[in-house]
């Protein structure tokens, strides 16, 4: 079964604090993992994907196949990071549906 689990509905931190949004997955095979972000009143947009190994807006995520995790991290949170974050997976062969987690709302307070 394909499943993405984000255990935290809400994560509240102060500006400058480190952030880790947890994501665990279940998939038989080699999935592709993504983080999507939705800022207030905006559309879902891709933040980063494991295959590109990029750092976007200071965020990084490492795929840990042993722990089936893809946690999103940022060393110093900014107020503009406040948003809804969704972890998602798809098959690796291209043109596959996305399976989303339930999302974590990140609130960064001044």
């Amino acid at each position: 079964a394909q499943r993405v689990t984000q255990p935290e509905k809400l994560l509240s931190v102060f500006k400058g604090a480190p952030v880790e949004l947890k994501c665990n997955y279940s998939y038989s095979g080699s999935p592709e993992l993504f983080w999507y972000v939705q800022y207030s009143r905006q559309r879902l947009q891709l933040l980063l994907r494991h295959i590109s190994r990029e750092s976007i807006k200071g965020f990084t995520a490492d795929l840990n196949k042993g722990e089936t995790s893809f946690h999103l991290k940022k060393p110093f949170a900014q107020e503009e990071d406040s948003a809804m974050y969704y972890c998602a997976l798809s098959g690796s062969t291209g043109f596959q549906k996305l399976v989303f987690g339930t999302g974590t709302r990140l609130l960064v307070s001044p």
Partner: protein
Amino acid sequence: EPEVTQTPSHQVTQMGQEVILRCVPISNHLYFYWYRQILGQKVEFLVSFYNNEISEKSEIFDDQFSVERPDGSNFTLKIRSTKLEDSAMYFCASSTRDRAIYNEQFFGPGTRLTVL
């Protein structure tokens, strides 16, 4: 930068009525998707569409649902006889051939469907 657009932004309908949700994918994209998000729940896949036919559909996408690409730009989702439980935010997404390898899907802003 090109974006996926959806109309209307909010649709209110009576139970049993037909609704058509419209999407204009990014112009050079070839793969199209519909997802929905019931309030407080996760974003769920409904259907994917390529080369004028359905590629994959979920269990949610039953006989009450249909999709169509009536012309070169629009991609529609029709619900024939709406139920209360169809109330949700419906998202359209599209992707190109190249980026489909990485499944980078570009999402529209969504249509909020309210069934009374």
